[in-house]
C-alpha cells in the first residue's frame, strides 16, 4: 500500500519555485489546521514554521505537480504528533477498537441525537460550532477538519493520517456523532425546546 518514494533531483531554482508556487499558497490552510490541533497561537506558528522548513529540506521526496497540500498536511500532522503531542500530559482517550466495534454494530442506524434540529443550528453563531469542534479529542477533530473543512477525499485522508480508509470512515462517523452531541448541548443551553417532531 505504501508508495515508493522516488527522490527527485531539483536545482536550487526549481526548489524555490516549488516552495513558492506549490507550498506557500497553502499557508492559510496549514495555519488553520495547526491551530485546530494545538489550540494555541504560539504553538501554531512554531508548528507551521517547522513544517515549512521540513518541507523545504525534504523537497526532493515531493514530486512536482502531485498533491502538495496533502503532502504538507501529512508533514504537519507528523510534526504535531512527534513534537507537540508529547508535551501534553494527557494520552489520547480514543479507543479505536471500540470505534470499530461501534461502527460495525447493529445500532449504527439508531439516531444518536434525535433532538438536534436544523433550525436551532441555523441560529448558532460561529463560536458554538468552533467550540464544539475544539472540544473533541484531537483525533476526532482532525478527521472533521480534513474532510469537512479542507475537503480531502477519504483516500487522501488515509495517506495523511497513515490509517486504512475503513478507519477514516469509522472515525469520521464517530467524530460527527460526538460533534452533534456537543451541538445539541449548546442548542439546549440556548433555550431551545427540542421536542420530537
Amino acid at each position, binding site marked *: 500500500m505504501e508508495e515508493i518514494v522516488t527522490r527527485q533531483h531539483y536545482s*536550487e531554482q526549481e526548489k524555490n519555485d516549488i*516552495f513558492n508556487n506549490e507550498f*506557500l499558497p497553502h*499557508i*492559510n*490552510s*496549514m*495555519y*488553520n*489546521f495547526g*491551530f*485546530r490541533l494545538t489550540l494555541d497561537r504560539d504553538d501554531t*506558528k512554531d508548528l*507551521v*514554521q517547522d513544517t*515549512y*522548513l521540513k518541507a*523545504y*529540506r525534504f523537497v526532493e521526496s515531493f514530486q512536482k505537480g502531485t498533491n502538495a497540500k496533502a503532502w504538507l498536511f501529512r508533514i504537519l500532522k507528523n510534526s504535531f504528533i512527534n513534537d507537540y503531542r508529547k508535551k501534553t500530559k494527557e494520552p489520547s482517550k480514543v479507543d479505536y477498537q471500540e470505534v470499530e466495534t461501534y461502527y460495525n454494530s447493529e445500532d*449504527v*442506524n439508531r*439516531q444518536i441525537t434525535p433532538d*438536534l*434540529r*436544523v433550525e436551532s*443550528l*441555523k441560529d*448558532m*453563531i*460561529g463560536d458554538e*460550532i*468552533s467550540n464544539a*469542534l475544539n472540544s473533541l479529542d484531537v483525533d476526532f477533530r482532525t478527521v*472533521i*477538519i480534513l*474532510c*469537512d*473543512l*479542507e475537503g480531502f*477525499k*477519504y483516500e487522501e485522508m488515509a495517506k495523511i493520517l497513515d490509517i486504512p480508509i475503513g478507519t477514516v*470512515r469509522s472515525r*469520521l*462517523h464517530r467524530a*460527527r456523532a460526538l*460533534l*452533534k452531541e456537543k*451541538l445539541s448541548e449548546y442548542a439546549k443551553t440556548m433555550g431551545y425546546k427540542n421536542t420530537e417532531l
Partner: protein
Amino acid sequence: MTPPHNPFILADGKKPTCMEMLQLILDGEATAEQQHYFKVHMDKCMPCFKTYSLDATIKELLQDKCCKDVAPAELIEQIKLQISQNQAG
C-alpha cells in the same frame, strides 16, 4: 420481482447501513449509481432524510464559520527568511 441492485454493497457482500451510505453521499465519495440509489432510498427512509439535512447543515456551518484565519504576515516572512538563511549556510 427482484429488488433493485444496491450499488453500495461491497465486494465482501456486506450490506451497508443507512449511516454508511449517507456518509459516502455527504462526503462526495459516492458514484453516480450510488447517488441515484440513495436518492430513491431517502424518499422512503425518514431517518436518512432527517439525518441528511442535519449533517449537510453542520458541514456547511463548519465551512462557513471555522478555519477562516489568515496566517500572520510575520510568520510568512519568518519562514522565507529561515529558508534563505539555510540556503546561504
